[in-house]
């Protein structure tokens, strides 16, 4: 066939699964997880966040979680823990 140039696909040939954001809860109830990703002063930020949430929602249970390092993806056991024990979670990138 002379009417086209054929190249080989350099990608992994897998359509990435669209990463959909989880549905946002209308209101916070049950257990809220606050995850510190281990950046410097992340604990200061998370402490203040926890204080503000407790002030506004005194009945909410809050658990604090911490990634071993900000440099690597959240380990599976921590993801499992969040899934099993939290109805909502607050985690954000730092800097």
């Amino acid at each position: 066939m002379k009417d086209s140039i054929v190249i080989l696909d350099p990608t992994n040939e897998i359509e990435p699964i669209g990463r959909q954001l989880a549905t946002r809860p209308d209101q916070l109830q049950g257990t809220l997880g606050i995850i510190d990703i281990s950046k410097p002063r992340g604990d200061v930020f998370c402490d203040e966040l926890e204080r503000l949430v407790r002030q506004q929602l005194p009945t909410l249970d809050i658990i604090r979680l911490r990634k071993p390092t900000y440099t690597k993806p959240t380990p599976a056991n921590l993801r499992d823990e969040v899934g099993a024990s939290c109805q909502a979670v607050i985690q954000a990138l730092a800097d």
Partner: protein
Amino acid sequence: MSTLINVGRQAPAFTLADRDGHILAYGEIPTATTLLFFFKYDCETCSLTAPLIERLHQALAGQALKVIGISQNPISETTEFIEQHQLTFQVVLDTNLEVSADYGFDAVPAVVLADRSRQVGFSFEGFVKQELLELIRLTAASCSTPPPEIVRTEDQLPEHRPGCGSRVHDPEIARRLAVRRNRATLSARQVRIPIDEDPFEFMASQGLDDGLPVVPPTEERVLRMLSGTTRAASQVVAHIPPNLAPATVEKIAINAVMAGCRPEYLPVVIAATEAACNDEFNLHGVLATTYFATPVIIINGPIRHRIELNCGGNVFGQGFRTNATIGRALQLLVRNVGGGRPGGIDMSTLGQPGKFTCCIGEHEELSCWEPFHVERGFSPETSTVTVFAGEAPRAIRDQLSRTARSLGASMGMCLDTMAHPKLHRMGQVLLVVSPEHARTFGRDGYSKSDLRHRIQEVTARPLRALLPDDECQKGMAIGALPQEFIGQDGRPTTVALETPLSKFSHEDNILIVVAGGTAGKFSAVLGGWASGTTGSTAVTREITT
């Protein structure tokens, strides 16, 4: 080496057209005894043989012998040959040389005698009089007739004359045939680019490039690239983050083609991929960080010379294909196979030019120390690739120091500014010592250990000078200090405040290589990223073919 199909094997079937476009399908249905005569028009041995084959055809055509001439040349040249020798048997054109390749001969003429079931009764290439006579005898026997008088006294045939090289060995044709032969080893999806579309623009529009044009990875180029390794194309070398997608040798070869690599670089790219894709190096983090880090590739050992890697002047600079394309291939793999792209998982705030490519060779021959890879446990004869998550190189200028001690102090002072002067107890750093500076160290018998010690010595400052204060709110985080430094009140103890801390948490964090040109008292420092188990550690792998 010739693998001309020999006695007892089955002659491959084929379909070829003659000069008028009439199709001849040999082997489709049982046929008569067949004599296949492969030739090319400018071969004197073919010209010597052709009239004899014609006479055999004339003598035995009535006895159900079918002679098929198979020309390796286009129509016009084939016609010239036919007319010159007044050939009356059917001649077909092996336009793509695929039939010639299937029959395995190295030289023309090549003659194959096969029976009704295509079983080969005799074959030879070139010209040997005794073989020709044997061919005549066997051909006649297979037609159940006495051998005809084919050779005449006036022919004055030589006893032996070598043939001419088959056209399957012409470089361009050989490459094309290799593609056909090895196509089955490839499994990557084929992408067709319409002929009216510029392949470079097409690839850019698909987001497959790094901002610079890439070489279109055609099957032929990829197969040629794969010739640089003995590994199977389907072998999975690593899983490349962030998508942890499998990087087969084939996918690495495709991206190496795009980067502009030559086949002999492929083993280095494979080893670099292995080195980068593991928990120790943490390529995911190196890619995702807002910091400047990128894989800096350092190559050691004999392969540097074989692939003409630059270890000398302008070692981090432009103009050296080996360096430029090996580093680029790894980056393209991360992008195309791993799915790591700027603005996506790659969140670097400023990036750096090394994210296009960064690959250097150690100038082992001008080093005053043992080579970097030997220090890391490999033999001098082994070739290795090391990946280090580094910043861009920054200058260390010292044209005045005449002693190793003074030069070591200069280097320490420069290294102290890595990331921030108030950040100490840091992880890995790459110090690239120029040959002139290496000579100064060598002259004084200064070991790498001495240099590391000197750097730690001149950078040591009491903790109190490294903590955040009103003058500069940046400094060492209390939480990052050793437990014994912290008192009951959660603050550093008085003793701790006066404790001198060096720039690096351990002397071994200072990686030292020698590279660069012979003129210039300039060295370079490439700062690291987060180090250790929570960051990235330099990884070295052996390069094997």
